[in-house]
């Protein structure tokens, strides 16, 4: 990797100040960034670690009844501490990567990266979540803007993520055999107000909602409701591991399975 300065502030405000310098980047787990640095694909002047900031860690239910997870909370902590509040989210976190990844990687780091095959974006979008930054709140609908692209500005930090807690939910991930990211992943969340279905891993535009499925499932939360649907292959990813037609098929299969498994 190229040389860089390393800072480990203990408050959000110090981190923001440090990140204001030219070519500075936040480091929040580094499960994507560190390999990229080793390959010299990134050349930050300064890395600002978010691992030493107590106010960026923790899982709780806020006054509005939303599950709030601070930005630098690791997957392993979420798997453990969210389990009683939101079992489907806890299960999702417990199946990201391997133990080493789960004990380093953070939810804020993952969401800010917005890998099109990452798991959390599907959960956030299906849970009508909010991304809380040091500057503002961003609705999940507005946050994800395509592969590796988000609404975050330069130097803006995810301080927390809020999830509406559904009555039942489930995440189905079909593993890409090499990376074990989602070849396709489907998060189904059933609320009193209706059902939300978010798909990751499948689209060239990153995570998205499947509105036709949502409408049918809101009417009748049964896998057979989806029988009439065929997912279009337009805009779906084609790579070594699956064609658009295969991903379209997985979307339907996994959505049905998520409906069956939702609890």
């Amino acid at each position, binding site marked *: 990797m190229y040389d860089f300065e390393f800072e480990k502030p203990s408050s959000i405000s110090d981190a923001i100040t440090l990140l204001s310098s030219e070519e500075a980047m936040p480091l929040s787990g580094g499960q994507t960034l560190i390999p990229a640095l080793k390959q010299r694909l990134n050349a930050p002047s300064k890395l600002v670690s978010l691992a030493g900031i107590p106010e960026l860690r923790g899982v709780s239910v806020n006054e509005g009844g939303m599950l709030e997870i601070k930005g630098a909370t690791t997957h392993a902590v979420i798997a453990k501490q969210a389990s009683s509040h939101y079992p489907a989210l806890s299960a999702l976190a417990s199946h990201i990567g391997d133990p080493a990844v789960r004990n380093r990687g953070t939810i804020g780091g993952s969401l800010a990266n917005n890998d099109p095959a990452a798991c959390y974006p599907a959960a956030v979008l299906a849970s009508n979540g909010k991304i809380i930054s040091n500057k503002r709140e961003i609705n999940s609908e507005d946050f994800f803007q395509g592969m590796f692209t988000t609404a975050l500005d330069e130097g803006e930090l995810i301080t927390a993520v809020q999830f509406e807690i559904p009555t039942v939910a489930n995440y189905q991930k*079909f593993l890409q*055999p*090499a*990376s074990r990211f989602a070849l396709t992943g489907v998060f189904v969340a059933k609320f009193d107000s209706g059902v939300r279905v978010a798909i990751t891993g499948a689209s060239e535009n990153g995570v998205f909602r499947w509105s036709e499925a949502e409408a049918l499932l809101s009417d009748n939360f049964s896998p057979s409701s989806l029988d009439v649907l065929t997912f279009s292959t337009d805009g779906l990813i084609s790579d*070594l591991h699956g*064609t658009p*037609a*295969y991903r379209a*098929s997985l979307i339907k*299969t996994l959505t049905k399975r998520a409906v069956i498994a939702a609890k």
Partner: protein
Amino acid sequence: MPKDFGIGVSQKRREDVRFLKGAGNYTDDINVVGQAFVHFLRSEVAHATINSIDTSAASNMPGVVRIFTGADFEGVGGLPCGWQVTDRNNEPMQEPPHPILAQGKVRHVGDPIAAVVADTYEQARDAVEAIKIDLDELPAVIDMADALTENAVKVHDELKSNLCYDWVLGETDNEKVQAAFDNAEHITTLELTNQRLVANPMEPRVAVGDYNQATEEHTLFTTSQNPHVIRLLMCAFVLGLPEHKVRVVAPDVGGGFGTKIFHYAEEAFCTFAAKACNRPVKWTSSRSESFVTDAQGRDHVTKIELALDSENNFTAIRTNTLANLGAYLSTFSSSVPTWLHGTLMAGNYKTPVIQVNVKAVFTTTVPVDAYRGAGRPEATFQLERVIDKVARELKLDPVALRRQNFITEFPYDTPVALTYDTGDYNGTMNKLEAAADFDGFAQRRSDTEANGKLRGLGVNCYIEACGIAPSNIVGMLGARAGLYDAATVRVNATGSISVMVGAHSHGQGHETVFPQVVAEMIGIDESQIEIVHGDSSKIPFGMGTYGSRSIAVCGSAMVRATEKVINKAKKIAAHLMEASDADIELKDGQFSVAGTDKSVAWGEVTLAAYVPHNFPLQDIEPGLEETAFYDPANFTFPAGAYACEVEIDPDTGQVSIERFCAADDFGNIVNPMIVDGQVHGGIGQGIGQALLESCSYDKDGQLLSGSYMDYAMPRADDVPFYAVDHSSQTPCTHNPLGVKGCGEAGAIGSPPAVVNAVIDALQSAGHDVDHIDMPVSPSRVWAAMQS
């Protein structure tokens, strides 16, 4: 009391103590005082002419010692190919030069263009980024059929074409072969791909070159399976150095799988640069670099035809294969699709007419060479897949069809150049049927189907030629090396023994297994015996470890050397006991005089050998050290039968392996636990090929699977618990231990079992699918189910 030492005992691997403690000594652990680091500028395009290389800015970068380009290597040789294949017209193969650093052209992504030696690795890398190269990109040559068309772009301008050779084995008369097919009752044809693989040993390659100006001696530390071979090739063909001034050391090596057999440019570079810079020079491959520099494996496109008579006897096999060599001839690349592939096309079956045709093709990709099994998996896969296909077409029991056609009398001369010395294919199949519980399959399928899934059972046989090889035979076939091995048994005065062996252990467990043999022969504790390997300055000139040859060839040399030691020790014992040599017996480490109660211990004899106060100096020399070279009389022929049961999720195409049974005949077995482990590892790699792994290039020659994000290695949860049975044993008839070798069997025998099982499952559900190319990925299975 059960036997607790020697041959046949599952001793735990003594080397694992240091490996598991992190105390191994790998090449990257070796740091020589004053060493500099090299980083290579590698081509990012598959094919281009180099117009100019401007190193001026880079030379002035901090820490730069020296920058090398192809011009610095004009006075030395290129990397040699160790096997000359003669084509069907008796012409030698086309053999292009393989420079250390590119000369005028680059021919694959990763081809080295320049090298920076600097004080630190990062400085070398910085300076590489400052080198300016001017390239004219040329069209990539990727598809083998396209590469053989008349107007194809040539990978090597100086060659006639991209065809390295057009080779035929077996029946060369096309009309005779055609007549056999014309007379057939049934013909089955199968076209398939045996996909390219990346070997991916856990330890990437490393080289450290050192030069001593005072003694004019070179030392190369390198991740190699065969240090003497590297020394010979590098000295004699590349750098023109006297062998006695060059030491090559391959210390602990973290897996080879074939890809560490070959002599690589980086080894010659570090040796050359250490002298040129008068500093030790170290290169450590990154994983990314290994994907574009380590020789890759397989990559055959094949059409196989099988003819049967009205009684379902196999009457003829005809195969036509395009074999990808990549951009250059790696050390043994030419032999893999020919003498290691075509010769196995008879398999376990008495097919009278066989014709094998292989066209080997240059493409702008990483060179292809031996990878675990090397040619034999490619032969086994096509043969066992086409037999499976014909059994399905004719609605025959695939096991019965195989049994009907088994070779049952030995020795057996195949139509493809080999003589199988021994075997019992019904014996291994019997063991398989018992271990795999074929009778219970119907119930298991029914249980699986009740859960909404499909279940399939796949069976196949395999045979391989191991213990490579008789030097006189391989010499006739084009090998530019002998393939004997060597061992020196050095008995110390106090009775402990150091055995210097030409074989190299990089996961096989030689340090445990070889002492078991010597302990058995002498009757002393294994802890008194130590194996020395991997250092050309310590070991005799052996050819290293590949082709499952270590115990069969080097082990035999060790037996011969130990016999010499014992014979001499008996003479010493006879002298000490004032008896005749012929009356001396050795048992449990005690020499005794037959029919008397007189005896002397092993240690008394060894002490007498080195403190020869009372010694027959007039008859024999003092000391107790013997060397033997062993050149085998034939290959060995391990064989077996494998069975795989899979479940398929019909909604996603996901295949899961539920059961896997292997019945192998390895002849005699020295350490059953280690043999089990070798088979487990081989099957794991075979399952990796069958379901997961694929090295893919796009049409521009860029590697699409250049990291573990896209290259799917098998993981623990991809493989089942294996049932392995090695109790069907027909000992090798021509080596002293009766051993055959077990290192590659699993990788050879398992891919067809997996694919046969997948096809069985799909057909059970009415899908009209008779083949899916590997890797049988979920998306491919799903697509096959849609058509």
